[in-house]
């Protein structure tokens, strides 16, 4: 086939995911181009260059050998927790909350790094846990602690969205590790009890307000509900085919807040309509399906959990963001992967993609010979 015309190192790249990603990112760049009033700067060009940069990073991650990754899981986890503590300490010293850590020219958001890291460390933990222990307390308590520490550190930043993402990624990994189903059912019931308590005692005012306004956006049309209302107007007014590229009044006249970051999907929907929205949904479906496929094909427990956890982490971004912009979830500051303008989410998602490509490579190179030890 065509494979003979292309050099092997290029041909063997996982084009099944790179192509959809590139499409999605380019489409995102087009939307950002429009959101900037028909200009490559300041959003679209940096969006594309970041994609190229982080795709390269993902391809580097892809080359990592399994042993090193497995060995590095706990040290990496420890390092990110330290970074999180460092952020807290800096915030404490600086007299204000902060999420960023400036390391020379590099601005690092450790909470973002924690999203893939929690999956990695849990995969490693369950991989090393003797099979017989699954179902016992030793299978859940350490894992719970591994999630709780970073989640707590993030939530006091305060960054509810990221903390939820960490819990969700970690929780799904535990679920996939095969712990008894009744624990999850019980946990669900417990959550149903705790959620109202957490709502009234655990959330900041602005977070509680966001939830309330989500339940009734029109109650505060110019305040917090403004985001949801304007986003729904943008998506709804787009209709089936949209208003046309560059014709979105909601974003161009600044009615839609955060039109290039968290609400980029609404910006897109206004101009491309339902067709554009379903297209984006489809591409995410392809990527996520590929991710779960990689997990299922993976040769061993570590690889499986790692790949599935990474897929779920990406999924969480997509789900929460899209539910938020369509008015199905409260406003939490979570961007849409590969479309929203912003470096840290691009980095996190590319780490997840890179990890998936890495597992995919392990599977292919290990062949079917590699067995579940």
């Amino acid at each position, binding site marked *: 086939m065509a494979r003979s015309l292309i050099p092997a190192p290029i041909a063997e790249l996982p084009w099944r995911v790179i192509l959809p990603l590139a499409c999605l990112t380019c489409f995102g760049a087009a939307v950002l181009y429009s959101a900037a009033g028909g200009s490559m700067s300041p959003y679209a060009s940096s969006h594309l260059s970041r994609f190229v940069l982080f795709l390269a990073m993902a391809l580097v991650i892809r080359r990592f050998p399994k042993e090193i990754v497995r060995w590095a899981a706990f040290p990496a986890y420890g390092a990110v927790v330290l970074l999180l503590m460092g952020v807290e300490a800096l915030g404490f010293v600086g007299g204000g909350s902060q999420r960023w850590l400036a390391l020379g020219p590099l601005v690092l958001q450790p909470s973002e790094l924690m999203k893939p890291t929690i999956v990695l460390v849990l995969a490693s933990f369950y991989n090393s846990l003797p*099979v*017989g222990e*699954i*179902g016992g307390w030793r299978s859940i308590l350490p894992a719970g602690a591994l999630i709780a520490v970073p989640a707590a550190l993030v939530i006091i930043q305060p960054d509810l969205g990221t903390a939820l993402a960490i819990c969700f990624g970690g929780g*799904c990994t535990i*679920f*996939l*590790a*095969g712990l*008894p189903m009744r624990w999850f059912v019980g946990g669900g019931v417990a959550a149903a009890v705790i959620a109202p308590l957490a709502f009234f005692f655990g959330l900041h005012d602005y977070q509680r307000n966001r939830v309330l306004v989500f339940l009734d956006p029109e109650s505060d049309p110019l305040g917090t509900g403004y985001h949801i209302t*304007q986003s*729904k*107007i*943008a*998506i*709804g*007014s*787009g*209709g*089936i085919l949209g208003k046309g590229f560059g014709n979105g*009044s*909601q974003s161009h*006249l*600044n*009615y839609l807040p955060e039109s290039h970051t968290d609400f980029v999907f609404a910006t897109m*929907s*206004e101009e491309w*309509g*339902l067709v554009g*929205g*379903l297209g984006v*949904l489809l591409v*995410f*479906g392809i990527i*996520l*399906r590929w991710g*779960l496929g990689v*997990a*299922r094909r993976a040769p061993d*427990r570590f690889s*499986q*959990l790692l790949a*599935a956890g990474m897929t*779920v982490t990406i*999924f969480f971004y997509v*789900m929460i963001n*899209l*539910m938020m912009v*369509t*008015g*199905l979830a409260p406003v939490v500051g979570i961007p849409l992967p590969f479309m929203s303008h912003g470096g840290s989410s691009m980095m996190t998602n590319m780490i997840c993609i890179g990890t998936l490509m890495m597992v995919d490579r392990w599977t292919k190179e290990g062949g079917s010979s590699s067995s*579940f*030890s």
Partner: protein
Amino acid sequence: MGQNTAATLRHSFTRRSFLIGGVQGGIGLLLAARMGYLAVAENEKYKMQAESNRVNLTLIPPRRGWILDRAGQPLASNRADFRVDIVPERLQDAEREVDQLGQLLQLTAVQIQDLKDKLADARGFQPVEVASGLDYDKFAAVSVRLPELPGVVPQRGFSRYYPSGPSVGHLLGYVGAASAKEYEKEHIPLLVTPGFKLGKDGLEKEYDQILRGKPGARRAEVTASGEIVRDLDTREDTPGQSIRLTIDGALQDFASRRIGLQSAAVVVIDCQTGGILTLASMPCFDPNTFANGIGRIEWKMLNDDDHIPLLNKAVRGLYPPGSTVKPLASLALQINGVSPDEKVNCPGGYQLGNRFFRCDARHGVLDMRGAIEHSCNTYFWSMVHRVGYENVAPVAKMLGLGQEYDLPGINQRYGTVPDPEWKMRRYNQEWTASDGLNAAIGQGYVLVSPLQLALMTARIASGRDLLPSLMFGHPKPLGPALPFTPEQLAVTHDGMFRVVNGSGTAAASRLNVGNITMSGKTGTAQVRKLISRGGGGDWKGRDHSWFICFAPSEAPRYAMAVVVEHGGFGASAAAPIAKDVMTCLFDPQKAWAGLIEMEKTWGGPPAQRMAEKYRVYAAQYGVSAPKVDGDAAVEEAMSRSEGNEPQAQTTGVVTGAESGETQAAPAPSPAPSADAKDAAPSGAPQ
């Protein structure tokens, strides 16, 4: 659950990964359905909302209808204008923006203080005027800096203009931005559109709905922060309808300016139709500057002025009419059987019981005509005493005193025509013969407004029951016929003719216009018992000066009443004004030439004098003048100025005396002391 093995775990992983995949797919479907719902089912709704976001409808304040005088000349018009308003709720940093506007528009400290006062009082949605009548450069200077001045609205439009300024203030009222109360009453967007003014007083308020017109609208595409991206389309405003008054604009202006530095009112009525030609009261505020809101300095000027500029003296000033009621009394005597030829000897006063009422002079033997000519009190005392004042009072009412008239936007006061029943009701006291004597010469309890006296003069002059009207082309139908025969009227006319053209009290105010003659009657209404009559003493203590007249004598066309508060003798203050105003009706050039000369000695026309006074006040008080508390305070002040008019009500009860130009001691009379603080104690019988 059995023992876990690697195989069961792998199996479990696969199952659970499919479960997660299923959940993902389900959420994907949910999202797709949600998008479809928003974009298809609710598309119309959101399309409209997006459109109402995008398109901003700005109302264009309609041009206000003109107010025209009888000749079609504007008393109130509009002029093209560059203006700047502030919408307080859109301000971001009020302090900084006001200061920046102050620099751009070169406002004085006083103006900036006034602006801050207005901002402090305004509710968020009410636009506050910063400045109007700007030149293009200042307007442009603000316009280009709009991005740094959120909430500031520069626009070109039209603003109300009163060409003769203070001369028409009381008559027309003024316009201003809607107050919070007015907006509550009439909850439409136009009222909070920057630049829109509604009538606040007088005719402007009465006919507001007619004058207002319909707003135009400009559709523009705007950003979320309110910046205009481009204009979409514009609908022109529909100007308000004009209204036309019976007022003679030039005469109104002349009369107002002729008043000069006095506190006075002039009313001129057309003897053929009852149309009001002039309704002047001075001093007055300038409605041109009132339209921009009342500043601190202006407020202090108005409050400090003992001439009470906020009171429309022509209809709300009440004064004892003094001897101007003698023509009225002469008609009342005739229909009660007194022969005009019967003579009375005036020995210098009138003896009633053990009291002696002193006349101004020893007039000797006089008939009715002579008694009017020389304003002899003794004649009227003795004759009214004979027929009884209770028979004079109905004639006074018949001739228009003690009544209000249906005049749009003109808030009047009744005044008083006393009779026994009234006194019992009001003071719970019996009517005395002295009360009748006082009332007979327009003192005691009698109180009238200049409008009423002008109407009385018009009715006496024409012999018809005229009703005053203000809207041109809509004269009021005549009332029931007056019961006077032409012969009876001729006697009264004759007496009034001799007042001016014979050896009467106003001989100095004879008209100098061709062969046109004027008939009239002086009046000097005593304010309080004085050691000496007429002038001298402090201003507040001096008598009110009256003059009523009509011309031409033989075929009355115009009737007039003039009052000069504390002007002294009727002949010396009021009559000269009446003479000049009457001259203006027949020979305007001559009258105006004379007025221009007089104004040179007064410091120019009223608007110029006010500007000069403002300058002095601003220099003296600056921003330290007390603050105005909005519309409410102005309204309150207007009603307070009635109360500030105690001279009219309380001093009328003092003594009766008349305006002979001779010096004579006032005749003390038994005055009911009523509630008069100013009033002197009752005179002792002599």
